[in-house]
């Protein structure tokens, strides 16, 4: 049976992980390669590295980092952040990435999805979508709310709406959708489960849930009721709230199919 995936996400700036990460086993917790290897050995199903460097110099540092990560780990590797052209995608593929995650650039020029997918295959293209909704009135269903797709960390609204944009991304050749609710991201209060459910039933490609997990119950909900195929986890791992083996054991105990080493 196909397992639900647990995917740690590492934010990288100038070659170093940026979030405060505390692991006794690691010599240098800022080292993005060591941290990736640590997660892989703990049973991560994939890794996501997001480049949050703003400079051109930071970008080339990131490419070299991707090469080192790809050399060191033996699970799939997704990279994102600042990919705005077919050339960017090619550079990261050559560095050893298995998938690229694109976000703002796809909104600015949706054909980018078609171009990358037709050149390298749909399995190589993850379209990340950040969206937020206005405060709900009593009795309003969150899944029925108008979810406005945003860029720049959720600060800039676009004219796109979540469900139609996700559908368009799929039609254009996206292999997966990574959806983050900006209303939930960072809250640790859980995911908008009914919205994930509507999204997963609309799409034929896998959906990765991101942003909002505070504990294993939240992750279990979005994988079971929300029918997400994978969960991207960052804060709860980096801050030591849980570990991959603990999280997977809890999911397994709730009857969710996960890969346990």
């Amino acid at each position: 049976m196909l397992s639900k995936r647990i995917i740690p996400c590492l934010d990288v700036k100038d070659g170093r992980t940026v979030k405060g990460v505390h692991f006794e086993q690691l010599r240098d917790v800022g080292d993005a390669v060591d941290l990736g290897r640590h997660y892989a050995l703990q049973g991560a199903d994939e890794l996501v590295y997001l480049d949050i460097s703003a400079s051109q110099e930071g970008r080339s540092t990131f490419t070299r980092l991707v090469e080192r990560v790809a050399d060191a780990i033996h699970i799939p590797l997704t990279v994102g952040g600042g990919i705005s052209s077919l050339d960017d995608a090619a550079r990261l593929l050559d560095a050893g990435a298995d998938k690229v995650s694109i976000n703002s650039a796809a909104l600015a020029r949706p054909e980018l999805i078609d171009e990358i997918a037709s050149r390298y295959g749909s399995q190589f293209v993850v379209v990340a979508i950040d969206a937020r909704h206005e405060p709900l009135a009593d009795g309003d269903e969150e899944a029925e709310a108008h979810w406005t797709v945003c860029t720049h960390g959720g600060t800039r609204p676009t004219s796109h709406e979540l469900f139609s944009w996700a559908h368009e991304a799929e039609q254009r050749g996206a292999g997966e959708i990574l959806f983050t609710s900006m209303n939930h991201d960072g809250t640790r209060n859980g995911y908008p489960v009914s919205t994930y459910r509507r999204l997963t039933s609309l799409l034929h490609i896998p959906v990765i849930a991101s942003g909002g997990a505070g504990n294993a119950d939240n992750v279990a909900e979005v994988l079971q009721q929300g029918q997400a195929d994978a969960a991207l986890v960052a804060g709860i791992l980096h801050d030591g709230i849980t570990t991959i083996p603990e999280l997977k054991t809890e999911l397994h105990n709730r009857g969710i199919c996960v890969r346990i080493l």
Partner: protein
Amino acid sequence: MIAIIDYKMGNLRSVENALRRLGADFCVTADAAVIRSADKVLLPGVGHCGEAMQNLRDAGLIPVLRQLRQPVLGICVGLQVLCRDSEEGDTECIGIFDSHVKRFTPTPVLKIPHMGWNTLENTEKKIFDGIRSGESVYYVHSYYPTLCPDTIATTTHGVMFSAALKYEQFHGTQFHPEKSGDVGERILQNFLKL
């Protein structure tokens, strides 16, 4: 020396990295003489099966592959080209394995591509030494090789299909051992020991 065949079907870096981690001596080549004289041959591949066959044909490698007597391992599309035929682009393949490659039928609950970690069952033969049924390996594909007498492991995604095939010295895995963690590394190691 292990020859990794480069026929312009996707990035070979992850396969190279996996062999490097195992300490294997390898080269990346499309040269028939080098391939013929290699101890073992790896045929990776990501992409369209029809394009893969065309690229092999253009490189003059189809008769070379057919005549190899050393252990060969096809991975993903590299396995599919060794089957009889594929529904992808209605492609006639090399026909080493007695298997047909078909497209998964999507259903409301079945996602296509089949992407992620799925369990191996009914594993047999040497490349699965030390691998228990129920271990997970990493898949990314929309077309699957049917069950046939050459099947040496199965996986189920809506339908049960050949996770791996073996005919004489030819092996193939539909999953990606180079991306399948310790389990995949063990399978590659077993192949290198053949």
